[in-house]
């Protein structure tokens, strides 16, 4: 016998189910299709002709694509490391000290998060060409403009994550270390950094994935010899959407998903630990 639908039993209402279905279809069907057709044994992405891995092989053999992938990884690693240091310092600065116009500075720091990417891209392009930043240096220095651009939009994410974690920091921990004889630096190294580690890792993961798949800003700051993976995929798509593009995109999706999952897991684990400590 069917029980009546309770006031919060949304999952049993027809209109909720329909909405959910539509949302999931539009969200995941394209991605699922993209991944499925990367295994399609056909030149065109329209009809399913059978399973093959040859487009993965082809993508692996595409030197331009591999070089772009290597560039992307290099940029992501360097900009992530710089973002972690810069973001953590900014967060600690905002948490620890009082100074004039602090609220304004805190707001301005988060600006790169909300500014439209296209505007950031154009601004970066104008900036680098105005100061005449050299673009013909040897690898990896030819990536410096892109790295700087990536740091500028990803370090605020690290700062925001670390700042949030600092709110839960018990200042008595730092004072206890100081009381036991630790210098300012030892307090930072032995107490602050271990406490912030989950935030640093999560923020770093965020910065890494943001950098890895950024297209707009990279497009404006990359030179002819500094193609990144997303930019390369875009240029391939301009000719035709071959399964090779699908294969390359699938690899990027997997890398991004794995990184994001790792970041979420780190945060979850930190949350569990904090709960345990509080309880």
């Amino acid at each position, binding site marked *: 016998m069917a029980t009546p639908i309770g006031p919060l039993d949304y999952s049993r209402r027809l209109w909720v189910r329909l909405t959910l279905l539509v949302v999931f279809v539009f969200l995941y069907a394209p991605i699922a299709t993209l991944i499925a057709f990367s295994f399609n044994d056909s030149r065109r992405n329209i009809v399913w002709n059978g399973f093959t891995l040859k487009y993965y092989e082809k993508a692996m053999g595409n030197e331009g694509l591999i070089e772009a992938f290597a560039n992307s990884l290099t940029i992501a690693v360097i900009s992530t490391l710089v973002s972690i240091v810069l973001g953590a310092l900014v967060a600690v600065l905002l948490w620890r000290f009082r100074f004039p116009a602090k609220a304004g500075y805190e707001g301005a720091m988060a600006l790169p998060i909300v500014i439209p990417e296209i505007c950031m891209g154009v601004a970066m392009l104008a900036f680098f060409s105005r100061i005449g930043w050299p673009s013909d240096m040897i690898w990896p220095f030819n990536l410096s403009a892109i790295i700087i651009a990536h740091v500028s939009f990803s370090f605020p994410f690290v700062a925001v994550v670390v700042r949030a974690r600092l709110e839960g920091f*018990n200042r*008595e*921990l730092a*004072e*206890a*270390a*100081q*009381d*036991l*004889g*630790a*210098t300012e630096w*030892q307090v930072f190294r*032995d*107490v602050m950094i*271990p*406490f912030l580690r989950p935030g640093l890792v999560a923020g770093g993961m965020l910065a890494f994935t943001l950098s890895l798949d950024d297209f707009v800003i990279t497009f404006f700051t990359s030179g002819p010899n500094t193609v990144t993976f997303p930019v390369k995929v875009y240029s391939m798509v301009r000719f035709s959407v071959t399964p090779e593009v699908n294969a390359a995109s699938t690899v990027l999706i997997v890398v991004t998903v794995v990184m994001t999952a790792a970041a979420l897991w780190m945060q979850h684990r930190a949350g569990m*630990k904090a709960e*345990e*400590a509080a309880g």
Partner: protein
Amino acid sequence: MSAQQETGAPVGEVQAGDAPIIEIAGLSKHYGSVAAVDDVDLTIRRGEFFALLGPSGCGKTTLLRMLAGLELPTAGTVRIDGQDMSTVPANRRPVNMVFQSYAVFPHMSVRDNVAYGLKVDGVPRQEAYRRAEEALELVKLGGYGPRRPDQLSGGQRQRVALARALVKRPKVLLLDEPLSALDAKLREQMRFELVNLQESVGITFVVVTHDQDEALSMATRIAVMDHGRVQQTAPPAELYEFPRTKFVADFIGSVNLIEGTVEASADGIVRLSAPALQVPVEIEQATGLPAGSSGWLALRPEKVDISAEPPEDAGRNTVAGTVEEITYLGDVSIFHVRLTADQPLIKVTIANLDRVTRRPFTWGDRVHLSWAPTCGVVLSQ
């Protein structure tokens, strides 16, 4: 009879062998226009178990943090073992602190927590661990070294914090509300343990607390603070029997405060008349008050005798009244007696010595209250 004779303890003077370990002079801490600590002079002697007692916001924690060097004074000086601490940062002071939250480092094992202070001082790892284990045994946590703090109970974490502070062999151990986070049973047990620990290590303890029972039961001397000022510094019994101000009388224990006028003050007897009392009362006390000045009789409820007939001893202060309220508290009953219309009730505490179903007095009964001249004290402020 003077205060000194009553408690057998010296007041305001340092005896031989009681060398000062902490000397505080003119110490103030201002936050903007608010004085958290206001011109405090205090001497703490070597080997004392000293308590800073007061309501929240009285400045006791700020004072403690200035001893640790975690706050810098606005004015005044702190000397520890004769050395001026003005320019000595927190990490170089010969004191260690047990924080209210214990502040046990969550990412370090118990052993690493306790050894941390030694390691930053450059003590070799082996030596640091050996001394850490000794300190853990001292606080009855021997063998807990490899555990993580999140595997410990609140009481055990506090012991880790104690061991971590004691392992550095400080000249003074500072404790900020050490028992406030423990449950009632454990709190009582820890009081004894802290006292025993202090006696066995011989280090001066300075404890901050808002709990008078805690201060009275543990400390050898107590400084009562209010609004950033020290109201009175005395051993527990003296503080209870001879409070110097209305605030101290009211803060420590329960008290009847009766406002009146000093009629005469001579030969160690103060005579006070009060609207709430039908007859003037006489109190023996060393410090005289000028005749005609206003004074407050501070009278502990348990020191008042209640009877149906007036007592035969004519030397006792005796007043009559009517029982208006009775509060039964199990071990004691509190009788609230109206002496005079429109005046505050007088509280009288009677121990329930018998398993009575019938009270000796009931609501509306006419009773006589009496107390010896040696009970109570007349205060001018």
